[in-house]
């Protein structure tokens, strides 16, 4: 019950955050110096075209009317129309978002499974050769520029060894028939196992490139958090009960050590979901980062605006999820 009421309270606290966010995003397009319509269309546009665009953007109304119109629009899920393609952004952004989400999930699974376990083992066998190696790799991991890692992966695994494809989400000669836009799901639902294998192969290189920095950060945080917890009195109590060291570490210590680790996982997931522009560009990944990147090139302001709104909303929702997980893991939190 306490967990439920905490969750509801926490969800209500999102409303001011989301409103604030909408104001910032709303201001972006209005903060362009001079006439936004003119800036968007360029110097050579005809006055008629500029006037039409002002009408489309609602720029002739007072700003507060514009804001409420905008708010009404986004609450109903309408993100506006792309100036470049003329299509509804709500519909256009879907596949990009799915591509980014799929890549993020794969990267974070890689980062969390390896990072958390490496951190635990490092703390368990503190000052052993495993600990030294793992922490050295983690240090290299956080220090490596992601675009360089991506390029090296492509050169080695795609170019030299020819094991894995270097760009795209699927084999372009035999594209996946998208239903949900999550290709792993789509191919499984269609029972196309060779297609699934193609999709998985396309995910490996960008997934590893994106997951390396989060993995290294997670490993280091897990290690230091575990080292602190392993000295706690309740860990000694658990051992005094006759519990095997494995369970002492993975049950009693880990659950207590998870809070800072979870924070990092949440933040990193949010960052990746924002679309890693560099990685998506290198690997030709049709994700949100590339969508917005292209829109910037096209000066497609409604797309930029909506893209930022979507990314910011996802970030806030992930942090909400992390907060709820805190309360689930540590019963003391919901009473604070």
């Amino acid at each position, binding site marked *: 019950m306490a967990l439920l009421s905490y969750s509801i309270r926490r969800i209500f606290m999102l409303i001011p955050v989301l409103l604030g966010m909408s104001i910032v995003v709303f201001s972006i397009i209005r903060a362009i110096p001079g006439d936004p319509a003119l800036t968007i269309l360029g110097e050579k546009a005809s006055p008629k075209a500029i006037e039409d665009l002002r009408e489309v953007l609602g720029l002739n109304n007072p700003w507060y009317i514009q804001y409420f119109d905008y708010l009404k629009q986004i609450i109903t899920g309408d993100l506006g129309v792309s100036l470049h393609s003329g299509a509804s952004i709500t519909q256009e952004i879907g596949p990009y978002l799915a591509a980014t989400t799929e890549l993020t999930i794969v990267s974070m699974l890689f980062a969390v499974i390896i990072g958390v376990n490496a951190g635990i083992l490092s703390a368990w066998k503190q000052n052993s050769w495993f600990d030294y190696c793992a922490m050295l790799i983690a240090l290299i991991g956080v220090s490596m520029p992601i675009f360089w890692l991506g390029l090296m992966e492509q050169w080695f695994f795609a170019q030299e060894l020819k094991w894995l494809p270097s760009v795209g989400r699927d084999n372009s000669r035999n594209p996946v028939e998208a239903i949900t836009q999550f290709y792993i799901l789509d191919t499984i639902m269609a029972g196309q196992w060779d297609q699934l294998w193609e999709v998985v192969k396309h995910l490996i290189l960008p997934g590893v490139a994106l997951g390396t920095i989060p993995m290294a950060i997670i490993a280091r945080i897990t290690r230091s958090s575990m080292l602190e917890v392993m000295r706690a009195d309740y860990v*000694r109590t658990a*051992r*005094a009960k*006759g*519990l095997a060291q494995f369970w002492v570490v993975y049950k009693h210590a880990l659950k207590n050590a998870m809070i800072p680790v979870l924070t990092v996982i949440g933040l990193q997931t949010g960052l990746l979901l924002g679309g890693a522009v560099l990685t998506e560009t290198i690997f030709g990944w049709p994700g949100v980062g590339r969508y917005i990147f292209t829109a910037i090139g096209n000066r497609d302001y409604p797309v930029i605006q909506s893209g930022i709104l979507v990314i910011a909303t996802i970030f806030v929702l992930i942090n909400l999820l992390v907060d709820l997980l805190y309360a689930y893991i*540590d019963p003391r939190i919901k*009473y604070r």
Partner: protein
Amino acid sequence: MSDPVLQIENLQTHFFTDRGQIPAVDGVTITVNKGEVVGIVGESGCGKSVTSLSVMKLVPNPPGKIVGGTIKFKGEDLVTANEKRMRDIRGNEIAMIFQEPMTSLNPVFTIGNQIGEAIRLHTKASKKQSRDRAIDMLKKVGIPRAEAIVDEYPHQLSGGMRQRVMIAMAMACNPELLIADEPTTALDVTIQAQILDLMRQLNREAQTAILLITHDLGVVAEMCHRVVVMYAGNVIEEGDVRTILKKPKHPYTKGLLNSLPKLEESQERLYSIPGNVPIPGSLTVGCRFAPRCDQATDLCRSEMPQLKAVGDNHFSRCWLSE
């Protein structure tokens, strides 16, 4: 009462640090008989906690290691026992409670989960059975609303309640020996008395032997049948609680007793033993207490005395008590 449950013989637990090998426990011999309450008394750093952790083989390793002696539990040597056998013994045949009830329970698991875990580990009890047993144990240690408390988390309980939970957890598998490391030090005086009462009652009813580690002679007087006084990693005096409290032989024990406040005499200032406990590892030749002893002779400073009988079941490690 001469059926020994625990026989610690010449135990040596050393810590290997950057500053060298530190003998935290250096030749300790203690026997605990069935149903007996034995107190280990001494100042901080005298090795009493390390002795108790050595019995459980829970001395953090590295840096700590048992380098000599035997610890016989019902005749079986624990020093040479493997980890698997030790896990069977811990929490089942020998249980332990600690000084800090506020931090000794895991904050993220319910009381029932933590007590039940010990029960399921050592018996074939199902989840339901271990939960029922946990509730029974909570009732036995005097926790009100046991059926509700079993599903609560440690932070919802007071310090005294948490120590009762610790005792319930320790007693859940009917251990033959309970090691209590300063179980009342962190508690209020009134709660202290309740916890001691509870332990005495468990000792009487279940015939559980208790090795009680404390620096509080008041607790010793109330609880123990026999007392072992430790100083700088050694046992320096041992005997019946009456003998030790009324007719101590060792100057250190005398000093400890003199430094207790007495109600019947008005004292200007409490007596205190001059000097400090020697830093482990800095020990030199001779009696370890000699530098602080006002009766020390040249013999005391040059040769280490042995623990010798000075009366009926009364031993002292002092040249002067002979």
